[in-house]
């Protein structure tokens, strides 16, 4: 059993109901079922989660640092995209 045969999986953990799954880290596992179990052992040892997703790392399409300027910089000077023109009434939570 060599490492070469065990693909890399990315692990997403949801801390509690109502929150989103958040990337927690990665691990090696022979298949999805074992990846879930390994994730349980590695990332929820101290009661961190109520739900786990695992995704094969090779299935993730990621933006590259080379594309950073064209991807993200144009958003910086478009202040109308930011909801800064609203007055937030007092006492409103979860905003």
């Amino acid at each position, binding site marked *: 059993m060599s490492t070469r045969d065990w693909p890399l999986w990315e692990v997403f953990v949801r801390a509690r109901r109502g929150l989103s799954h958040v990337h927690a880290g990665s691990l*090696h*596992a022979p298949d999805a079922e074992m990846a879930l179990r390994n994730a349980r*052992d590695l990332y929820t040892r101290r009661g961190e989660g109520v739900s786990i997703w695992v995704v094969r790392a090779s299935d993730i399409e990621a933006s590259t640092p080379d594309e950073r300027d064209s991807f993200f910089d144009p958003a910086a000077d478009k202040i109308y995209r930011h909801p800064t023109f609203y007055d937030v009434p007092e006492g409103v939570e979860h905003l």
Partner: protein
Amino acid sequence: MKDRTLFEYTLALADDALVSAQRMGWWISRAPELEEDVALANIGLDQLGQARTLLTYAGELEGEGRSEDDLAYLRDDREFRNVKLVERPMTDFGVAMARLLVFSTYQLHLYRALATSRDQTLAGVAAKAVKEVAYHVDHAAHWVLRLGDGTEESHSRMQAALDAEWPYVDELFAPLAPSLAGRVADPAELRDAVLSDVRRVVTEATLSMPEVPSALGGGREGLHTEHLGYLLAEMQHLHRSHPGATW
């Protein structure tokens, strides 16, 4: 002593868990992958936790002031009450998974039955342990399935591992002392349920249930294989060399 047979019964449960935990610890840094190191360490630590509570309770039942440490570290092999299944070396991954499948399936049924027993302390320990052990069964079953129904080599090695463990399975189901009848779980009554669970996994893994004669029992009476002495020497030497050492 208030209740010698209940003390012996509790000690047997504790020693099974303790010795199994020690064997499981051997795998840390030796499993096929770091992830599996962690999984087996977790399982061993679950078992160790069960052993600690059970040993503490055994000490109370005995009533001679022995703590969990006294019982774990200051008894010789003849005083240990674990089955031989858990004490033998476990340096083959197939053997580790075959043994974990059998032992944790046995523990699962035993703890389930104990959780509704009349002994409040044992019932409490068992109820907590059921969830832990269910995960151990799951882990072992997944590996037995993958190795049994894997490559030609993994299949034959998984079958060899099952065959090697099988002579020691019978000892798990030794009948209860008559004076404990109705008070705690009777291992003899668990046989069919345990073997049927194991058979389901073994069959799905395209393996066959071994048909081999049983080995000589005796673990519950303190008659062990030579391997337990070496295991205890490693497990106990720190405490014996430096009594009361902590960190």
